[in-house]
């Protein structure tokens, strides 16, 4: 269903400012795809692009961080409230072509798409390591630990796992491919490490969007040839080396 209204089952704060929402939905989404979410009669105009964190038992799970009024209003939704969804949108990670062992690297709220991605990969018999970076408090680690063969954690504050950046824990040579989602500096660093090691790298971008369908062109990013790519339609997942992440 490309556009639908669903009823929120659960919407809870799992870490300061980070919410987990469950919505019944009959869709089949691919790992790394996203939905445009909007509260009916919201005070903000546009829906918000939120990635699929998980999909099982006929329920979609979204993990999102409150960063402004739009996400504040999503966070205020209670079980039984209505939510408008457009999606699933975008290309997603290339799990169908995966083999060997994949590293999933998430930074901050960028860990969200990695749970469903890990589960999809494992179902295909592909080995998965999760390497997750947080500022201070961690979230989704229990589920990621169950879904992945190995879970490595880094926090900038040192509160959990390795003290420092997530990239310190990534050894690309051990993997056939690396999938990453998180802040642009992290994606840039992960891409550089993978290129040096000759490991395939796929990055998922989080640009601001308006339509989510590839029409309005406000989410464009630049590739290495200086051409524009639509994050919502051509992405959100791109080969790391194809993008000019400094543009």
């Amino acid at each position, binding site marked *: 269903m490309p556009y639908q209204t669903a009823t929120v089952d659960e919407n809870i704060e799992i870490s300061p400012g980070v919410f987990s929402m469950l919505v019944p939905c009959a869709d089949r989404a691919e790992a790394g795809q996203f939905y445009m979410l909007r509260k009916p009669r919201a005070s903000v*105009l546009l829906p918000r692009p939120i990635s699929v964190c998980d999909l099982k038992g006929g329920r979609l799970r979204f993990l999102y961080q409150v960063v402004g009024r*739009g996400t504040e209003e999503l966070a205020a939704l209670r079980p039984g409230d209505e939510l408008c969804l457009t999606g699933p949108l975008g290309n997603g990670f290339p799990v169908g072509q995966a083999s060997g062992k994949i590293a999933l690297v998430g930074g901050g709220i960028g860990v969200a798409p990695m749970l469903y991605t890990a589960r999809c990969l494992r179902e295909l018999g592909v080995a998965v390591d999760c390497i997750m970076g947080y500022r201070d408090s961690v979230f989704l680690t229990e589920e990621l630990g169950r879904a992945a063969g190995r879970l490595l954690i880094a926090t900038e504050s040192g509160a959990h796992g390795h003290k420092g950046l997530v990239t310190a824990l990534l050894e690309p040579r051990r993997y056939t491919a690396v999938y990453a989602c998180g802040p642009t500096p992290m994606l840039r660093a992960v891409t550089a490490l993978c290129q040096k090691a000759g490991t395939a790298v796929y990055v998922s971008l989080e640009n601001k969007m308006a339509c989510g*369908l590839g*029409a309005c062109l*406000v989410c464009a990013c630049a590739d290495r040839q*200086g051409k524009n790519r639509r994050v919502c339609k051509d992405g959100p997942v791109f080969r790391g080396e194809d993008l000019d992440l400094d543009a």
Partner: protein
Amino acid sequence: MTLKTKLCGVTLKNPLIMASGTFGFGAEFAEYMDLSALGGICSKGLTLHPKQGNYGSRMWETPAGMMNSVGLQNPGVACFISDELPRMRRSGAAVIANLGGGTVEEYVEGARLLDSADIDLLELNISCPNVKEGGANFGIDPEVAAGVVSAVRGAFRGPMMVKLSPNAHDIVDMALACEAAGADALSLVNTFKAMAIDIHRRGPVFRNVSAGLSGPAIKPIALRMVYEVAGAVKVPVVGLGGIATATDALEFILAGAAAVQIGTASFVKPDIALDILAGIEEYMERNKVKDLRELRGAARL
């Protein structure tokens, strides 16, 4: 009950047209709605040569609106004709090609290519606020606007609608100048020149400093402009600017618009135009309006 709308010789099955820049070339929305239910689709703003558009932030949301600074990113007129037009034609909606440009020569050359293409209507965009060279400037001064309109008139034989900028010195003067220069219809308004500042970076959000404001925030001003222009010109007026509901669309029609365009609202719900259409039909039924034309300008004093 009929919503059939005639616009300078072009028959639309209803007065709802998808606004340029918000609907791609239609195909992007095909899996979300039946495109053939629409009156017409305006293409993404085209220029003679392909354009990469602007760098940096391209969008900023505001209360009840959004600003964009896409900068007319498009594949160019020739590529539009070969790659996008055939599919757009199959949509079943009237095909309107929106043409922008940086110089009069560019406009004329683009119009010449479109003259032999299978389009129903040309929408001449003299109002994009996001391109530095020309574009918006053509839409500010009536004499400059008349120059480009009459030059394009000489190169394009089909029906031509001119899209006006609300940033014009005087919207009525501008409308009269474009009508005199050969416009068969006028569409208004494009986005309002606006800006935002990033308080953390302490700099403008957009590299061009200003960007174009659209959405419900601009509707009352757009409506006032459509009312004024519809009272001053003889050619049909197409109203746009923040239309998000059937009530909004009816307001523009009652102000004198022959048709309306839906833009930013499609971002909120992809098939919102069909909701608006259903709402207009319901209004007509409830008020025993047999022909939508009975409503055109009915609120005018």
